[in-house]
């Protein structure tokens, strides 16, 4: 079980990143990538137990369940989905703000512009402004699912 986890988790995370980046043009996107990333974490939980992430990887010393919830990874997850929600809302509101500042009338909640960035190794990547929103979705999904997972898991 641990061997399989060791092998698969990096692959899963890589795939999820790929899914996230290609989501705009091919099957994929923030939601799916988020769920997939969460699955990778869940596998780690099952194979190594809930304390592994906290004590062995992050090197924190967290003993009780309540400590775990308030200061440990759960707090990080909580920050993650809060940040995601802020990012998603902010990216939409930015367009509204832009509309009020630079055009005569307000423009809708989301509007769109995009550009292409050349990344080494990966090749041409399309960076759309919607990617920010999608990143927010991704963060919320990962944060929320992992919160639920660890809280229920600790139980």
């Amino acid at each position, binding site marked *: 079980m641990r061997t399989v986890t060791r092998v698969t988790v990096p692959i899963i995370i890589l795939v999820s990143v790929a*899914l996230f980046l290609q*989501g*705009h*043009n*091919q*099957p*994929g*996107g*923030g*939601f*799916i990538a988020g*769920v*997939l990333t*969460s*699955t990778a974490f*869940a*596998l780690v*939980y*099952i194979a190594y137990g809930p304390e592994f992430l906290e004590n062995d990887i992050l090197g924190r010393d967290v003993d009780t*369940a*309540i400590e775990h*919830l308030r200061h440990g990874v*759960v707090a990080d*997850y*909580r920050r993650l*989905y*809060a940040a*995601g*929600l802020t990012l*998603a*809302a902010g990216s*939409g509101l930015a367009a509204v703000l832009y509309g009020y500042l630079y055009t005569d009338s307000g423009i809708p*909640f*989301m509007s*769109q*512009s*995009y550009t292409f960035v050349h990344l080494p190794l990966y090749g041409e990547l*399309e960076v*759309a402004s*919607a990617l920010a*929103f*999608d990143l*927010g*979705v991704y963060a*919320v*999904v990962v*944060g*929320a*699912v992992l*919160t*639920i*997972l660890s*809280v*229920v*898991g600790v*139980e």
Partner: protein
Amino acid sequence: MQPNPDSVAVVTLVALPFLAAAATPLVFRWLGERTAYYAATVALACFGLTASQYGATGTVSYAWVPAMDVSVRFYVDGLALLVGFLASGIGVLVFTYSAGYMHGEPGQAKYYTTLLAFLGSMLGVAFAADLLALYVFWELTSIASFILIGHYTGERSSRYAARKSMLITVGGGLFMLAGFLLVWSATGTFDLHALVTQPEQYRAMLRDAGLLLPAVALIGVGAAAKSAQVPLHIWLPNAMEAPTPVSAFLHSATMVKAGVYLVGRFRPFLLTDEWTLLFTVLGLLTMTVAAVLAVASTDIKELLAYSTASHLGLIVAGFGFASIYGAETGAFHILNHALFKAPLFLVAGIIAHEAGTRRIADLGGLADDLPITAAVAVVASLGMAGVPPFNGFYSKELLFESAWHAAEHAGGLAWLYPVVAVLGSVFTFLYSIRFLMLFFGEKPDALSHVHRPPASMWAPAALLGALAGLVGLGGVLATLGVAPAPIDHFVATVVGSVAAESVHGFHYYVPTHLTPAFAMSLVTIALGVVAYPFYGAIHDGVNALLAAVPPLRANWWYDSAVFGANPASVTVTDTVQNGLLRTYATWTLGAAVALTLGGYVLANVAPAVDTVTLVSAPIVLVLLVAVVAAFAVSIAPSHIAGVLTLSILGFMVAIFYILASAPDLALTQLVVETLTLVIFVLVLDRLPAFYGEIKRSRALRDGVLSVLVGATVTLTVLVTTRATPDKSIMEYYVSESIPQGGGGNIVNVILVDFRGFDTLGEISVIAMAALSVLTLIGMRERGEAS
């Protein structure tokens, strides 16, 4: 040509009390008991603003929900101004009076806040020109009344009274809302001003839709509940649990006037034969029944409460009559009733405060100790009794006039109108004189020296009494040839806004020769004088009758219904919510299936038959595997096995999506399925391997339910996909996704671009779910949750 109302003044007028109410808790910290004068100042400002609009007619309007043609419209006319004057003017006096009466009482910040909010709602009711806005303000008055009646939250009787008034008035409000919606469905407008100024056109629309009678009846129920008409009058006597200034303000002068205001407001629009029959019968019945009950009451505030219901009945009956006299009766009596009833309540408050009792039998001879109060009581009670030349006499004359008029026109049974009107008035005369006699005659020994009230208490009562006397004096002057022009003019504008007929001014005077109406007044007074010596016998007789035959009392019906509902609700709770997850699921799913299927049957929908176009060998195979897996789940020997087989089902669905060329969905399904499986495995670690056998009957019930749920879902899918939407939706997304969204994956572009706002909502839900799990499970050790 009348000037248009000033929009700023009208909006300020309605908004000011609410703003003042919001600030009251802070002000109270600063001013303490003197908050009463702060509130009085606010009411005075409202009075000034109302006065500044005197003579104006018209609407001011601001869009609120433009998509549904709902606006915040305010409408200024005579009736609105009358109610506005009453609410703000009596408000000033009642707030001043409260400074004395509420001295040392608990919960004063709450008291003034609510009373100010009430003032705002009442002004809103008076000036709102949109049916929905009217409804909102209307219910706000009910809520304010609820809080004020239950002011002494520790008293069981206060809570009972508050709940009762809430049930009846808010319930009535819902009837009224239904009536408004009927009006809207037939005429397509919520604009009260349009309805009232072009009545023929809209009435015809309503009649053609067959909704005239239901609309009149529903609005009538709302008005009757608010104005305490029989048999919904029962909340008003209980409402006397509230502090006396509240009784004077809400339950005699303003809130209960909302009902008669509504009747008057809709009168030009809805006046038909049905209207006349409904409201005259209702009004005269209320007038008589409540007057009899007032004679039977033993407490001065209870007497005044029944008397209020009785006089409101008189106003409603007046508005019911189709002649111009009817309109004049209602319009003039609203004014007169407020002018004599508000001071009487204040007088009752003074008596209760200074003598320490409200029992009629324990009181008497108070005039020696309370001369000013006694003088006010004389003017006000004789007005209430309808004795010339006091103010109530003139409007009662108008009622007799309209009753006589209607009887002459219709003949036959309609002669009951004048007979019942006289009968009700005789009882009115009786209890008015009884109230007056509290100040005269022998003073009981138990009653020691009664202190004079502070000026803040007697001055408002005296001022109102003086106004009532002034209106009475106006009639005498008119007879002598000097017409009281300001009063005549004001009442004429009010009559103008409630009359369906054309109005030619308004005059009132003491008759100098014998008319039928004057004769009826004389008969009333003569009968009253003859019957007064038997007051005690009548009082005891009515009480004995009510005690002997409980179903005669509307309260008996109310109490039986309310207290009978308690055991029923306990039974329902025990059956539906017994703490077992299985029971909850059964009821929820069963109810959902029943509602959905019932809806389909009622809406007469049928599933499409020719939607099955995707059938191919691989799909059939995949679905068959899924079905087999579903059966396997139900016979799985352990939870782990069950979950694993369930995920076979999930993966089959994913493959189905791939075959149906929906790769995004398939991907999502696969990933979510995997995650679910992982979570299950994580959780199941701790659960017992198996729960054991279940009963055959329960298995059968669950099986039937699951089949039903499945059938409903299938049917729903078939029904919802039957409608073939315009191809343009799909084509729009296909053609626009790259230029507008810059992405080739339409599903994702829709999610993050076209429907980005929806997605934001969805991820907020996910975040909220995580938060609630955190709170419910994660934080429970902190010991705050339970």
